[in-house]
Structure formats: C-alpha cells, structure tokens
C-alpha cells in the first residue's frame, strides 16, 4: 500500500535538528510546483569540495571528501570518503583566482574512480595553472 507523510519540517527524533534523519533511497518528493514527484536521493549532491589550489593546497569546505592531493601545478586528486557505485557520476567543476583580475579558467576532470576523481585547472591557453578557488560537485549513485 502506498503511504504518504504530510509534514512541513523534518527533524530527528531528539528534536535537536535534522542531522540524524535518514531518507530511504527510493523516497520521492513533491515538486516545487506540485505537478510531479521525483526521487529525493537522486537529486542530492553526493560530494562537493571548495579548495585552495595555490601555494599549499587546502580544503576550504567539503562534503563526503576525505582528502585532496596536489599532483603538481593545476593538477589535483580528490578522494571521496563514501565511494560511488560506479564511475558514471556527473562531476561539473569551476575555478577562479582571487589574485588575478582576469583569471580565464577551464576545469576539466580527467580520471575517474569510484573513490576519487582527478581534475586539471587550465588557463585560456590550455596550460595547467593553480587557482585559489576550485570547486567540484558530484551527482550520481553512492555505493
């Protein structure tokens, strides 16, 4: 039998917040306009990171990321903490440099594994270049 729960806010049982709430991977939500339902878990970003790629690279903030490796100028490997189920995930990236007024930048992932992704940050000549603010978001299926 199909069930439906009508709520305005979801929090955990202790009432301290929503950080302990678990959602099943087949759950759906009613769309913003109310016309359709879509899968909730498919819409969630499974990992994201904002890191400093210049000087000594460092993670500014992240989710489901366990490490950042600096492979050389403009070349990084990001380690995913809870692995993806396959390498078919979507991983758009973007970067900029606060120290450069016109920091034309292209960010391109180039190696994918279930537990990591490597990316290159390039200037407009296609030369690997460090950027102060580099970002990647991963959507797909967790293992």
């Amino acid at each position, binding site marked *: 039998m199909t069930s439906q729960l009508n709520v305005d806010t979801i*929090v955990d049982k202790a009432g301290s917040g929503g950080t302990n709430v678990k959602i099943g991977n087949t759950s759906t*939500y009613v769309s*913003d*306009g109310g016309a359709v339902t879509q899968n909730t878990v498919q819409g969630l970003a499974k990992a994201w990171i904002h890191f400093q790629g210049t000087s000594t690279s460092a993670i500014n903030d992240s989710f489901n990321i366990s490490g950042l490796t600096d492979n050389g100028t403009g070349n990084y490997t990001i380690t995913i903490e809870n692995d993806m189920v396959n390498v078919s995930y*979507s991983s758009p990236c973007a970067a900029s440099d606060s120290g450069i007024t016109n920091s034309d930048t292209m960010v391109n992932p180039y190696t994918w594994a279930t537990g990591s992704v490597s990316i290159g940050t390039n200037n407009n000549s*296609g030369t690997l270049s460090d950027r102060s603010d580099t970002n990647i*978001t991963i959507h797909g299926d967790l293992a």
Partner: protein
Amino acid sequence: MASQLKVDTLTGVTTAGSIDVTGEGNSTTTNLQQGLAKSWVNFNGTGTIAARDSFNASLTDGGTGDYVLNFSNVMSDANYSVTGSSSVLIGNFETMFVPNFKPPGTETASTTSAFQFAVLRPSTTQPYDVPYVYVQVHGDLA
C-alpha cells in the same frame, strides 16, 4: 532509541512542494526541494552521443559540440541554473562548457522542457565534440 518511518512520498502540509529540513548547524532550516538537483547527466559527446548515467534528462545531438538536454519532468519556468564541465584527455583538456551558446542570431532560448549548450575549444572558439560532459540543473520543477 532510533525511530524509522516508512513512506513513499514526502509532501508539505502548508504547500505540497515545500518541505524544510534543519541545517547542519542547527540554527536555520533550508528548503528540501530547492536544494535538490532537478536534473543531471554524464555523457559521451563524441560519435553517437550516449549518457553514461543521468537523472530526469535525455539528450539530443545538435551537431559538433552542440547539444540539447531535454527534461522528462519539466521545469516551472526557464529561469533555472545550469552548470557543467567537459573533458578530453589529460595533457589536452582545455575545453569549456557554455550554456545557450550559439552563433549570434541563431540562439535558441531555454524552455521549461529543454535547453541548448555547447562545448568549445577556447583556442579556436569553435564547438568541439568531447568524450566527457557533465551537466547539472537547479531550479523549480513544475
């Protein structure tokens, strides 16, 4: 004791398509629907284009480096946010994702059901087929 509630669909009481969840810092709530990606895809843009994985998306090949993403469940308007990236191979991976790119005068406006985008090589400013393209969409579903 942990509790478990089994349901198939989450629906807001005040507004069906609006549910709040408490933020990580426990000081604010944020809207669940607004935070979800409404569509995403990872696809091979060379030869016969093919999605490796996707959600609420199908693709149309518009020519070299030129693609259309079609939504299965349409958006409520054309003001959604589109982000993306593309890759060729290590050592030669300077490509650029450009939403709504077409030569001036031939642009196709985004609609609630589809939008056009391109992958360019900046060195030539021309559309270019690449094997790895990633797109994600945030906004309001209908």
